[in-house]
């Protein structure tokens, strides 16, 4: 009998945001198990007890060759049927930063619901336009999308930290299909929610300022920035200024992302 709202957080060599991801999920009310990828590959049945699988940020396998490439390969080779079944059964999959890169490599965004074959990839996350790893705070805006727990129109600050986060598509048609299919979940915006106009707002130069993507069912979601790094009021880069102006904040603006995610999790049996 599966427990309600169980989450599996996957780690492997180079994953390094697992502790704060576990913290965010637990604060949101989920029971969390931190599992090594190799343990899951040996025992895919571990999926059966969970409603959510999270791949946290990091540099899995050093991001050698390309970010998320090897972790993605391990999922395609060792777990693609199991993960497809998990998602088709209502399970949710989240990838943050390196986890998003892994999910792009896994093919889960482009898979036809109900199918276990992985179609040719048409999306990629590649080098930032600045050609550098960048750690800075950005503003995200929720889009009306297939992941209906994302609060459309809400703007919140979170840090990003990556070198290969620029979202690109094979062609215009791919982008149009993603937009029309409700797959664009989060965009980089200005602090007031207006569209990003340059590298200060959209630091990696993502196509259509896309920061987060979901699959057509909304069950698989990935994003480059890190809501788990803004859980507490003192995480915000201007918190001492906000305090001086008398702004009351009891928690970081990133916690709400996790709260809504966990609240929307299905109770799987």
């Amino acid at each position: 009998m599966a427990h309600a709202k169980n989450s599996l957080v996957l780690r492997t060599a180079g994953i390094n945001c697992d502790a704060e991801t576990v913290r965010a999920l637990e604060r949101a009310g989920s029971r969390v198990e931190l599992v090594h990828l190799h343990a899951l590959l040996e025992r895919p049945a571990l999926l059966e007890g969970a409603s959510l699988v999270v791949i946290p940020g990091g540099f899995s396998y050093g991001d050698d060759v390309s970010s998320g490439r090897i972790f993605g390969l391990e999922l395609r080779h060792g777990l693609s049927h199991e993960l497809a079944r998990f998602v088709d059964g209502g399970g949710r999959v989240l990838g943050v930063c390196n986890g998003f890169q892994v999910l792009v490599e896994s093919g889960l965004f482009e898979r036809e619901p109900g199918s276990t074959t992985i179609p040719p990839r048409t999306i990629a996350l590649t080098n930032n336009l600045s050609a550098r790893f960048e750690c800075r705070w950005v503003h995200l805006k929720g889009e009306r999308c297939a992941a209906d727990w994302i609060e459309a129109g809400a703007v919140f600050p979170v840090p990003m930290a990556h070198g290969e986060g620029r979202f690109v598509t094979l062609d215009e048609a791919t982008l149009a299909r993603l937009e029309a299919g409700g797959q664009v979940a989060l965009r980089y915006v200005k602090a007031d929610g207006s569209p990003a106009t340059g590298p200060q707002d959209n630091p990696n130069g993502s196509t259509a300022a896309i920061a987060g993507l979901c699959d057509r069912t909304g069950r698989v979601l990935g994003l480059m920035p890190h809501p788990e790094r803004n859980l507490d009021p003192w995480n915000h880069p201007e918190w001492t200024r906000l305090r001086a102006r008398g702004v009351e904040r009891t928690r970081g603006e990133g916690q709400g992302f996790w709260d809504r995610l966990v609240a929307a999790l299905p109770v799987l049996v």
Partner: protein
Amino acid sequence: THTAKPSTASTPETLPAAWRVEVHRLRAGDDPEGAHALAALREAGWKGLRSVRTARGFLLPAECTRAMVDAATKEILADPVLDRAVVCAPREAPAATEGVLRVLVARKSGVMDPVASTVARAMARSGIWREKGEPHATTFRVYQFEGEPAALDPRLAREHCTRILGNETIEDVLVASEALPYALPRQSPRHGVVHVPLRGLPDEALLKTSREGSLSLNLVEMRAVQAHYEGLRREPTIAELETIAQTWSEHCKHKTFASRVEFEGRVIDNLLKQTIKAATMELAKPWCVSVFHDNAGIIEFDEGFDVCMKVETHNHPSAIDPYGGAGTGVGGVIRDILGVGLGAKPIANTDAFFVGPLDLPQSELPKGCMHPRRILSGVVAGVRDYGNRMGIPTIAGGVWSHPDYVGNPLVYAGTVGIMPHWAATKSVRPGDKIVVVGGRTGRDGIHGATFSSVELTETSEIESGAAVQIGDAITEKRVLDLIVRARDARLYRAITDCGAGGLSSAVGEMGADCGALVRLETVPLKYPGLSPEEIWISEAQERMVLAVPEESLERLLEACRLEDVEATVIGDFTDSGRLVLTWHGEVQADLDLHFLHEGTPKPTRKARFDPPREADSGVPAVADHRALFLSLLSSTDIASKEWIVRQYDHEVQGQSVLKPMTGVKRDAPSDAAVIKPLAQSKKGLAIGCGASPRYGRLDPGAMAETVIDEALRNVVAVGGDPDRTAILDNFSWGNCAHEDRMGALVLASEGCYRAAMAYGTPFISGKDSLNNEFKVGDRVIAIPPTLLVSALSIVPDVGIVVASDWCRAGSALYLVGATKAHFGGSHHHLVRGLSGGAVPRPDLAEAPRALRALHSAIKSGAVLSCHDLSEGGLAVAAAESAFGGCLGATIDLSKVPCDLGSAPGIDRDAALLYSETPTRFLVEVDPARAAEFESHLAGIPHARVGATRAEGVLEFTGARGASLARVDIEDLRSAHQRGCKA
């Protein structure tokens, strides 16, 4: 996928007997490395270049089938959206294209190649490679140049590419040649036990033996070794001699620092013990858990947890290979934290770089030196790639510049860790298994001229390449993941890292009180053919040594398997008091551990100090303060390091409270960083540092006191408790065999003692690097005496933390601390081309009280923001707080508390604006709480000097209200953004 015809440039015999896959970007916009290379090569003077495109290349075993190579290409090497792959069969090369010059950069044989290891592992794990083990893979980079025909001259290309794109110490740069290397390193030809004749040798022969073996043992030490073996009536083996040399090395023993010194008529019996360690012992703080004897210093934190810190230098490796040197520096200091007590979890990194002038013209660069800009960008990339991959936020540091660092840059790396209190101590018991975990052992870090490699001269490219260590962060991350779990399961009794000296130091230290037997043939190797002593002293990275009780061994090995960490039992700790090394049963070394650890003869050093004679130019009046503000903000040490900070993941672990950059636009420097490492505790850790090499040459004692003050005021300015602060000393000095360098070391060490005692701040760990000199022609240039002090301070509640950027218009601005005329080594003098003057020095009676008073004011909540005054004085501090907060201010210099003395030729306004007197802060206070603030500062010089304002203009007024300077904060901001660019 395209298949290519053989190129005409190389004959098949010279082409690698391996499949070649080259992965090119489809669109130029996805190839930023090409754009970077083009810009760098143009700047270096290669004219007529039109474009540079890069590609990544891979060599795979000839035994692969075409189908296997295609699968590897599709699944691992190339991106279906972004890339185009070109595959060539063994002994073939891509077709030449008219008008395109190709340059290939490949690692020399035996140099670590983590990407290749990952590819090999992935091919094996995914079943693409079906043979036993993993395939031998290598990587290379491709540069394709287009431009005017005259520009594409291979001779020109070689000259520029070796300087800008490749590093010939570790890489082969192939111009218009496809003859990539693919072989594994060759084997050492020697077998059996080799003895080194010492008995009866005259002095000069002993010295020759030391020199030719790169033992770095002086005559007194060589005589001690000789006498020891005379007593044993035998000759030492190579392995024994290498072990003694490693154990007695400056790096491991602090020989110079612990020596007896004759200084200006005084005799100091043990400099280290009588100064730095003495302060710690006399202060005897109950919250110091472990100081000086382990891999890092440990202090109490909260809730049953301790925190620890270590800072190391990696200077010479970084001069040869900035990227690899800095990366392995970071990797090494992280292992110190993994190896302190029973292991701590790293929670923060720090870095500090000292380089030559960034604007040095190429024509003035000494022969054989890399340009300071290339060094800086290389070390930043090295710290970035290692620290980010480890998932440890790099949160504090700095860059300092001086002409005398050109040939000998300094790279410091620090790590902070947290551990349960019970894990702070360790002990080895006879019978425990010696287990090595992590990376494999290769020839990394074995220098070319040691005994073990004199026979390798015909393979010189292997020797020089192997001397450089290349890091593999993910192997170390695996080890980190393993250690924290195995520690909490209590699967081992002791742990230490393999650093300098490799296994010889690690096992030698751990077994010092009992004994050890190591079977060298069991140590896992990267490639076959290492001799026993090469295995023993190799400095291959990412290895730790554990003492594992027999009953825990199986569980430990299982934990390692789960984490994908290689673990091997290589011997046993014994109760013999001897260090015994065997090689397939044959004894290679049998050393008395007491002699090894206690037999070092204690040298006596002579020392003196002659302060440099500089004309004192005074402090003339400044005609254009605005221009001077902008020049100061653009000088390298002061200018923005944002481009560096942004490349470091300073947010990972989600514990960030105060970031290295602050303000509305996040472009103002913080005095220190703060993290909150425990969810169940409201306490924070403030981490900061101080260094002032420009003071060091003039007055090493004042420099030491001032640098300690700087480190302390940095952490106190953000909320750290001065009475719960520990410091670390890291000395980088010239060759202390010279009396003047040794004299400066004596003065600086005594300054450290005085300051530590005055502030009540113990040193908990330290390190020295004492041979930082380089030759330009016949001239030897020593670096300026460089003391980096790092401070680790407990913030009682992260809610009290303040940043350096002004928060509101209309706030009261206070200056805390009296300004004196301190201009010796100041940035004011540097920028104006002046000399002489008093070197800044804290008032050791007053300063500790000022820090405590400020801390109580910050704790009360009356302070809105706080910034310390350091390089550039009040002018720079006010500028940074202003553009940080996007606010202006008016500051009345006539109100500034001061004691300028009666020295002639000192302009009062200039002195108040630019003096670098320590222990001063610019503090923003809510006007409604001004009286409360002042009550905390009772008895400390302080004054309300002005107010912040909404208009973005920073204005200073002098006597009688005359406006001295009125500067737009956007001009200050843009000046600050220039000046420290690589």
